[in-house]
């Protein structure tokens, strides 16, 4: 193998596809999409947290400022955005619990030969992912119910 061949091989297999890999769909499994959604929702929540820290600082400016700020947050657009933040939290939290369970070894199944179809993935991790998404769906419905009954 020449030096150029090595360079090409390394570039192809160094695993650094960056953010574009998030957008690649194709034959990714359910957990692959959850991985992307987890990161996107996490970034959105961090962005909201930064905004939230500064917006809630307005209470230092007194009652009038607070009341006028709260009046803005009651517009339909802001309520829809508030629901999106809630949805991001609900998904990120439930999927995060799933990830912690897997990371700590509770939901990976017994060690087995790595022969396709992988038993642990099929009978442990996939059902866990589905249960997590059903719980997320229920939380999203509860949030929607709240939004409609304010």
């Amino acid at each position, binding site marked *: 193998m020449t030096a150029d061949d090595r360079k090409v091989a390394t570039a192809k297999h160094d695993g650094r596809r960056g953010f574009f890999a998030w957008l690649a769909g194709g034959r990714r499994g359910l957990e692959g999409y959850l991985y992307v959604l987890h990161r996107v929702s996490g*970034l959105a929540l961090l962005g909201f947290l930064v905004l939230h820290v500064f917006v809630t600082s307005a209470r*230092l400016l007194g009652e009038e400022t607070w009341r006028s700020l709260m009046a803005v947050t009651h517009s339909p657009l802001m309520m829809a955005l508030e629901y999106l933040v809630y949805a991001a939290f609900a998904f990120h939290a439930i999927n995060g619990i799933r990830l912690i369970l897997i990371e700590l070894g509770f939901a990976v199944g017994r060690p087995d030969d790595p022969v396709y179809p992988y038993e642990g993935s099929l009978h442990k991790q996939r059902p866990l992912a589905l249960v997590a998404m059903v719980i997320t769906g229920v939380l999203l419905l509860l949030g929607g119910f*709240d939004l409609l009954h304010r």
Partner: protein
Amino acid sequence: MRSMLFWFLNIVAALVILVLLGLHLAEMHLSALWQYFTGAGPNPLDWEQVVARGNSTTMLASYILLLGAALFHGFYGVHNILVEALDGAKAQRAVGVLCWVAGLALFLVGTFVTVAFNGA
């Protein structure tokens, strides 16, 4: 060793956020549902309620704990994403420093506001 400690703290922070942010969201942003279970009460975003929470030491401690946990967890995630995307040890170290600086700055701002309002 340090990366393992951060990984562990990240999981602890996630659990703290799960409880505290779950309660915060339920009370502040799911008020109709919250009051369905706890009984009708005043709007938690009313000025009087904000002042009452601001003067509670328990709320002060929980806000600061939640802020610290959320910033650590969030910037740990951002750091991991950027380190995965960036090549080169220098760039990765710079990302680490930037995440710490941004996280600490936001923590100081949030803590200052919470403590200053508590004494107001």
